[in-house]
């Protein structure tokens, strides 16, 4: 797989400025001074890693005005343009969301909200695809069947609703 292939895909956007370099190394040099003086990096590089040999790279400006939904559709479009393998294409079709490679839950939640601003992004972020599973439907009424197996538990938060456990723990610590 030729890594730089996607650069031949023309895009009229400001993010096409990074066409000359492969992973934005050159570009970072030229904008380093501007980044240094602004509090928030306004330019971000996002890499969607399907597997180590198939990576879609997207560089864009003005991250505060972009949304997570825009990023997802843009990255998937780039990934499709990178390969002609129909098997991978059908797998790309089953990607429903993106998640961070270093498992940053906070970023994952923000990325899952389509209209969320991307201002939380760091200068360079590596994302990996989240493959969706099909919903089961009730055969007679065609309503979706929802059960525990439709959810993937990411993190447990603790007890709510009743305070006893919390209070017990708190008084233990304060003594």
């Amino acid at each position: 797989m030729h890594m730089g292939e996607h650069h031949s895909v023309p895009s009229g956007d400001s993010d096409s400025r990074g066409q000359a370099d492969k992973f934005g190394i050159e570009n970072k040099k030229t904008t380093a001074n501007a980044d240094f003086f602004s509090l928030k990096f306004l330019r971000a590089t996002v890499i969607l890693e399907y597997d180590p040999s198939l990576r879609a790279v997207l560089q864009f400006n003005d991250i505060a005005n972009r949304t997570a939904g825009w990023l997802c559709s843009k990255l998937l479009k780039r990934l499709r343009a990178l390969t002609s393998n129909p098997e991978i294409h059908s797998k790309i079709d089953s990607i429903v969301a993106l998640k961070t490679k270093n498992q940053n839950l906070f970023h994952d939640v923000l990325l899952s909200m389509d209209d969320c601003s991307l201002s939380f992004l760091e200068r360079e972020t590596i994302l990996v695809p989240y493959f969706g599973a099909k919903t089961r439907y009730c055969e007679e009424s065609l309503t979706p069947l929802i059960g525990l197996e439709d959810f993937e538990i990411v993190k447990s938060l603790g007890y709510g609703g009743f305070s006893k456990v919390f209070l017990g723990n708190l008084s233990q610590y304060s003594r």
Partner: protein
Amino acid sequence: MINLSFPYISIARKKDTGKFYAVKQINKNESINQPTYVINERDMLLEAPEDFFSKLKYSFQTVNDNAFANLKGLILKTESYYLIMKFYLGGDFHHYILQRKSLSEKRAKECFAQILTALEVLHKNRIIFRDLKVKRSIEVH
């Protein structure tokens, strides 16, 4: 060891859409969790306005959890009710106050007004919130 006599909250990702939800697990085997209480809670959440209460998205119950005992070990195998609610990122109000050490008078007023408005809605629907505290409130930015 997780004590399941009290509802247990986790964050979960729905597998077909990749969206995040808060999952409240209520153990069936505890006498305190009567079916009528859980149904009441479900009905209340369904009717409650979204502005003040975390929206209920799905609810279901499990009859025998043996098949799902390995869910990252976070949920133990019990027969439970599950309430799937909208997940808010802000964290609880208790945490919010601790982070800032104190709130300005203006901010405190705003927050208190919001909590009171939510209580007003409950009271209009003839529901009493018997155990209100800062840990129960969620900060939504």
